[in-house]
């Protein structure tokens, strides 16, 4: 692995003239610091607590080509039309911008690529893209362990494109903004995307990050990191739909800073046959800030799906609610690690977490780990974990009414996932339902 770390370090140095924004000094410094961190830490192995559920052997046993030119071309005609609720759609194909579609760009809304901003308004992004360590946790001993975030450091060094969404004061964006990431990669390629979502005071916006790598099943490594800032009295929904094939490794991190009286809602729906890890690190920085984190992971065959949340309650009267639902068939593996951290003096915190898993086969495995770190006195926190299979009693009841077994199983799996889907508003609910439908048509 040391060799691999060194090789990527060399790659970075060789390729850095090609990386965007290297003429911006703060960004150059950020990248340099990040690659040094990665050179020191390497990819996290199972000695790192947050990464100890399943191995990421495919990452450490293979070398992935950075910035190589993909030979695959996009077939624009095969693309589904923009959803009627979608106001702006940004399309990336294999990490490159293809198009930004909109019927009418609302006033006070700026949506463009990361490279556009590096070129035209780099100052805006300063401090909005941050080092991996900004979201690392301070241990009780005040020591920061940078290893869990080393893939974010890797992304920080190598990222070369992404989207920037900037919503100005008091602007309420109608419909939603979709960031569509289509992938059809050649073997052993890696691709790192970095996006920024910034909501000024009093604004309101919904975003869907839609990652679809469902064409080829060659070994590829992709990462998306999104830095989110929600200023006072604003509200952001940032949902992720992640679809992938076997052999694909996708690491997705969302880092959010939520200020006073603001609200952040995130739903992640993951349906992949590969290895996917979706993290949500949220810091409730202002009083009365609140967040809702929902996750639905659907896996089968040899899939490995991991969900991780870290919610920090840093001020008084902040609220968080986390719900994870996992459905696994065949040899599927999954984990959910959810943490609620209530900092000192964050009295009046209200935090709930629930994780439920449904195993459709004897070989499926799930690890669920709720963690609470509470340093304040006046706090209400709850957590619950269940793991089970489909109830024979329920199946018999449905069948005794004439519902065929396969249909009965679908109905029950659907009911299980509905807990997550019914929190979504009409803009996303139908699309999410389609993902569910696709999953159980393939699995059950």
């Amino acid at each position, binding site marked *: 692995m040391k060799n691999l770390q060194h090789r990527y370090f060399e790659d970075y140095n060789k390729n850095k003239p090609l990386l965007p924004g290297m003429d911006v000094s703060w960004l150059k410094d950020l990248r340099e610091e990040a690659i040094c961190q990665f050179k020191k830490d390497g990819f996290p192995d199972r000695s790192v607590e947050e990464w100890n559920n399943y191995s990421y052997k495919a990452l450490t046993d293979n070398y992935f080509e950075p910035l190589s030119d993909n030979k695959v071309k996009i077939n624009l005609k095969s693309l589904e039309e923009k959803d009627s609720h979608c106001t702006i759609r940004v399309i990336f194909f294999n990490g490159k911008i293809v198009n930004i579609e909109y019927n009418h760009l609302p006033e006070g809304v700026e949506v463009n690529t990361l490279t556009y901003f590096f070129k035209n308004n780099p100052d805006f992004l300063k401090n909005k893209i941050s080092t991996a360590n900004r979201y690392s946790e301070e241990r009780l001993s005040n020591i920061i362990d940078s290893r869990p975030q080393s893939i974010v450091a890797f992304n920080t060094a190598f990222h070369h494109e992404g989207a920037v969404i900037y919503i100005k004061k008091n602007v309420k964006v109608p419909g939603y903004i979709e960031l569509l990431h289509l992938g059809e990669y050649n073997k052993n390629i890696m691709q790192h995307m970095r996006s920024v979502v910034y909501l000024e005071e009093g604004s309101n916006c919904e975003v869907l990050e839609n990652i679809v790598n469902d064409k080829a099943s060659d070994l590829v490594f992709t990462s998306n990191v999104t830095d989110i800032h929600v200023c006072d009295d604003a509200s952001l929904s940032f949902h992720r739909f992640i679809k992938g094939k076997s052999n694909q490794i996708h690491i997705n991190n969302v880092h959010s800073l939520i200020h006073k009286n603001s609200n952040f809602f995130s739903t992640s729906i993951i349906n992949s046959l590969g290895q996917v890890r979706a993290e949500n690190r949220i810091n409730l920085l202002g009083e009365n800030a609140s967040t809702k984190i929902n996750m639905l992971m659907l896996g089968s065959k040899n899939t490995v799906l991991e969900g991780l949340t870290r919610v920090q309650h840093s001020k008084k009267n902040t609220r968080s609610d986390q719900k994870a639902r996992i459905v696994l068939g065949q040899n599927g593996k999954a984990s959910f690690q959810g943490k609620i951290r209530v900092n000192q003096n964050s009295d009046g915190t209200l935090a709930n977490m629930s994780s439920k898993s449904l195993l459709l086969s004897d070989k499926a495995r799930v690890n669920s780990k709720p963690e609470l770190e509470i340093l304040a006195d006046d706090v209400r926190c709850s957590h619950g974990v269940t793991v089970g299979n489909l109830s024979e009693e*329920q199946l*018999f009841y*449905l*069948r*005794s009414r004439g*519902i065929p077994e396969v249909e009965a199983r679908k109905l029950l799996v659907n009911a299980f996932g509905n*807990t997550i889907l019914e929190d979504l508003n009409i803009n996303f609910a139908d699309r999410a339902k389609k993902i569910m439908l696709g999953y159980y048509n393939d699995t059950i």
Partner: protein
Amino acid sequence: MGTALEIKDLFVEVDKKEILKGLSLNIEHGELAAIMGPNGAGKSTLASVLAGKEGYNVTKGSIKFLGKDLLKMSTEDRAAAGVFLAFQYPVEIPGVATSTFVRTALNAQKRNRGEAELDAMEFLKLAREKAKELKMSEEFFQRAVNVGFSGGEKKRAEVFQMSMLDPTLAILDETDSGLDIDALKIVAEGVNRLRDDKLSGIVITHYQRLLDYLQPDTIHILAEGRIIKTGDKSLALLLEEKGYQGIVEAN
């Protein structure tokens, strides 16, 4: 008339323990038969075997339903052929609305029989009619199946399902257990409304009271895994007087 259900010399094991031991029973079209018996006699086992529940091993005997071999049919095929079991303990299904459940079931049965399915409007019209007959509010259509229902509501929901699915053989497994008198009356009225010369029924109960409302045509005493005595209403009265033990000993 004519025979709707013909059970011949039925032996059934559950977990290798023999529960039914040579049970025979004939039920005519339009007949309502009550099955009474002490705890552990095999009443619920009979209901489960008829509905096709797994884990019930038929070692000997036959069941013919409308001339077909019932034991060769899957649970869902039996339902489509007209078998309906009203559960002693109706199962809760969180996340599935009652209307979705009943509509899925009704249309699955229709599909199975090669009939046209009901669309959402046709279904709603029918469901409203049936709910009204059972004095149920429409609000329960949207509630998850049996979740948070009281004992009475659960049993009423079973009768609602029964009236929607319109079976030819209804098996009521202790439908009266856990009901207060008013709820019992509503449930019994609901069942009586469905009675016609096409519907055959098996009512499993411990108590005389339900039979007062339902007026069964025949009464069968099930003890030690078989029917030991068959008679009319007067048998139930004899039972009240002598208890099961008295009748078992006399036979």
